[in-house]
C-alpha cells in the first residue's frame, strides 16, 4: 500500500501541511518496502484554481492508495472518491507523527 502525506518541508519530522491541494510536496510511503519518496506538488499548489483536483491527479500518477492530510475541499473530495483513494484526516503536527498514527490504526484494524 502507498500512503501519501501532505508536507510543508523536505523533512519527515517537520510540519504536516494541513491544506491538501495547496501542499508544497507529498511524502509517499510504501508499506511493503517500508521506504518513502518525495513528490513535488508545485504545479498544483501554485495553480490559480482547481489545486485540489490537480493534486488528486498527481496522487493517481503515483499510484497512491491512501492520503493523509489536514483538510480537503469539496471538489478534491469528489475527485478522491472518483479515484478510489482513501482519505484520512488528522490533527497531528508532523508528517512522521501522522504516519505513525495511521500505521498503528491500521495495525489495530488488521490484528
Amino acid at each position, binding site marked *: 500500500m502507498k500512503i501519501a502525506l501532505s508536507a510543508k518541508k523536505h523533512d519527515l519530522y517537520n510540519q504536516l501541511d494541513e491544506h491538501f491541494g495547496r501542499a508544497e510536496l507529498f511524502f509517499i510511503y510504501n508499506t511493503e518496502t517500508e521506504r518513502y519518496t518525495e513528490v513535488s506538488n508545485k504545479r498544483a499548489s501554485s*495553480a490559480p*484554481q*482547481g*489545486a485540489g*483536483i*490537480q493534486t*488528486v*491527479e498527481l496522487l*493517481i500518477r503515483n499510484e497512491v492508495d491512501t492520503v493523509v492530510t489536514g483538510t480537503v475541499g469539496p*471538489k478534491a473530495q*469528489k*475527485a478522491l472518491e*472518483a*479515484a*478510489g483513494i482513501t482519505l484520512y484526516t488528522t490533527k497531528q503536527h508532523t508528517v512522521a507523527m501522522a504516519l505513525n498514527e495511521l500505521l498503528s490504526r491500521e495495525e489495530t484494524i488488521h490484528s
Partner: protein
Amino acid sequence: MIITVASGKGGTGKTFASVHLYAAGCPDTFLADCDVEEPNALLFLQEHDLQRRDVYRQVPVIDHQRCRTCGTCSSFCSFGSIALLGDQVKTFPDLCRSCGGCTLVCPEKAITEKPYEVGYIEFSEKFIQGVLKVGSVSVVHMIREVISHIPDHELIIIDGPPGVNCPAMAAVAPADHVLLVGEPTPFGLHDITRMAEALEELGKPFSVLVNKVKTTDDIISRWCRDHGYRNVGTIHDDYRIRQSCVNGELSEAHIPVFKQILKELI
C-alpha cells in the same frame, strides 16, 4: 456618457462614490453594480420589485458510453475543470470558463455542452446588478452579461469590482471615463498606481477622487501632482459618512461634491 468607478484596492469607497454619483446625476442616470462577487449598491437605493433573470454559461457533458478515458480533454483544459481520475472522467463546472475546447479536442466526440447556472441579474428601469453564485469563477462572464443589459441613458455609472485584473478590465471596457477612488494608504497607493498604468495602456481617460483623507498633504494627492493626473475631488475622513453607510443611507452633505465632480467630467 459611461463612467466606471474603479480603484485597484478594495474598500476605498467605490460603491460610496458610485451611489453618490448616481444620486448627483441628471434625472436620466442609470447605475450598474458590476461588483458581481459582492454587489452592495442596492443597499443605498430605494429600489423594489426588481426583475430577475438567471444567467447561464456552457459547460461540458461527457457521454460515458463513448468516452474511452484517453485524457485528451483533461490535459487540454487549462483550468482543471475536467480531470481523468483513474478510469473515469469527471467535470467540475464551477471551474469551467466555457472555452469549448474540450468538445473540439475529444477524438471520440463524446463531449457536448449544456447550460449551467452561474448566478443571476436583477434590474429595474434605473438600476442593474449581477449576483454571481458562490464558488463560481465566471466573474468576467457575469460582468459582461450585466453590461450587455444596460439600456441607453444619458449618464451611466458602473460600480466596478476591486482589483487590477480581468474583472476590473471588463468593467472599465465600456467606459468613456474612469473615476479612480484612491485611499491615502501605502496599499491604496500601490494598487491605484497599477490601475493607472493599466488604464494608460488601454488609453482610457481617468481622473482621481481621493477618499478618507486625514492629513493636509496626503500621498494620493501628491501622487496625482507628481504624475500630472487629474484630481477631481477630495473627501475627508468623516464619521458621519461611516454612520450613513452603516444605515444604508446617502450622505446628503456630500452630494454637492459629486455634483461638482460630474460637472468637471461631463
